[in-house]
């Protein structure tokens, strides 16, 4: 597939029945104020009045609302779901903004100015000209340890994060290592403990000192938070059990990449499996450049 895919975003097909980027202006102002306070207090969850969107909660309504409030007509949007540009969720959201905002879309990370993501950070390094918007299911990192919002809010205000360290310690005592492999908690600028959304912990180091603006939207839980560029983000760990951003110990079977996060794909009933890049654009670009993995085939333009 070629990179730009804005064929359905021709001028005539943009929906004129809705305001630019679907949301009304007062809703956008409310979201924009929350985004600004989020950037001013990195890692702190700003409450916002999340709206009903034309998709169910859990399908990225938080990210969609933040994207709607952030997009300008000049932007080029990329949407990924677990690293893939071609899954249902990513395609639906991309088409949603093609039709309601008329923005250009792309699958190439380098060409995008706004990237909405579900549970991955692209493999390609982000730049200062990009904004990464995360879809977040449960924004509160302490929620599974303390169900009451009144208490977790107090814990954040008092910087009382002992419970989280106990949880990581219990991982070690039961499994011999910190077993948390995604939504791995981080501390932002030595103050707020933050849920990085369910990205694999492999992606955690990319959160820190990132040149791009990172925004997080949780629609059902009605929270927005943010990381300005070049913000220090540390994954929680212990001196004797340092953070380990692990991945499957295998190269990509399609493009041979040793440094990318891999999905394990079961290919038949006999348990045969292959490991492939979760970032489809990264894998495609590598194959187009001539790289080939153990079970790859030569790259053809237009092939999957």
């Amino acid at each position: 597939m070629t990179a730009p895919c804005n064929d359905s975003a021709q001028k005539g097909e943009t929906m004129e029945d809705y305001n630019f980027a679907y949301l009304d202006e007062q809703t956008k102002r409310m979201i924009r104020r929350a985004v600004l306070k989020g950037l001013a207090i990195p890692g702190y969850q700003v409450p916002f009045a999340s709206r009903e969107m034309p998709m169910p909660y859990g399908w990225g309504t938080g990210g969609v609302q933040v994207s709607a409030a952030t997009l300008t007509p000049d932007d080029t949007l990329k949407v990924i779901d677990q690293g893939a540009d071609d899954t249902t969720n990513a395609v639906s959201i991309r088409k949603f903004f093609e039709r309601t905002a008329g923005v250009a879309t792309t699958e190439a990370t380098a060409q995008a100015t706004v990237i909405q993501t579900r549970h991955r950070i692209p493999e390609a390094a982000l730049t200062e000209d990009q904004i990464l918007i995360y879809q977040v299911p449960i924004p509160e990192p302490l929620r599974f340890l303390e169900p009451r919002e009144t208490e977790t809010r107090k814990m954040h205000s008092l910087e009382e994060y002992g419970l989280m360290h106990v949880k990581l310690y219990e991982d070690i005592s039961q499994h011999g290592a910190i077993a948390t492999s995604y939504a791995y908690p981080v501390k932002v600028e030595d103050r707020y403990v933050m849920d990085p959304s369910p990205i694999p912990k492999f992606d955690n180091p990319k959160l820190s000192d990132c040149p791009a603006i990172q925004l997080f939207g949780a629609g059902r839980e009605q929270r927005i938070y943010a990381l300005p560029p070049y913000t220090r983000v540390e994954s929680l760990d212990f001196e004797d059990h340092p953070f380990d951003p692990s991945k499957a110990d295998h190269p990509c079977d399609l493009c041979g990449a040793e440094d990318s996060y891999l999905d394990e794909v079961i290919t038949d009933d006999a348990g045969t499996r292959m490991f492939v890049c979760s970032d489809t654009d990264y894998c495609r670009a590598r194959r187009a450049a001539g790289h080939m993995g153990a079970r790859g085939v030569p790259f053809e333009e237009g092939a999957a």
Partner: protein
Amino acid sequence: MQTQALEGGFADVAVDSAQAFRAAMVALARPGRLSEVTGAAPPAPLSPAAGALVLTLCDPDTAVHLAGAHDCAQVRDWITFHAGAPLTEAARADFAIGTWPALQPLEAYATGTAEYPDRSATLIVEVDRLAAEGAVLRGPGIDGTARLSLPETAAFRANAGRFPLGLDFFFSCGNRLAALPRTTQVEDS
């Protein structure tokens, strides 16, 4: 109300405010970075940049405080007509607009609570000169250091010292703006 108050709003509200918000967000996310905003033509002494911020961020849900010379009939009418924002005193303001001397004392503004530090005022400071020189800035959003012409430094150091509570600042000059969130550490040059 004079008809002057009816003019000077965004021509294309959705697009102009999206572009103004991008300028404001980039400014706040990258302290010291100057952004340009266009589209608003508010009455003096409100600058076009400050006017664009009002049109982009203020509405009936946000209380606005006008300080000093900005608290005049033309500006009041313009904000009331275009944003519908209630005008109020400093202590209740979500946004405050004025020159640096007129906005004093900073103690008057809400800095948020320990559990909700976002419930704090944003000050839009009208300045005569805005340049990437002068005080040295460090902190989130800045790769190493940045510089910004600030009216003073002590007040911003005290503000940063109260983190996560504090005020956030936009500086507007003509159609340019810059910002200083509470996270930025400020030193004299």
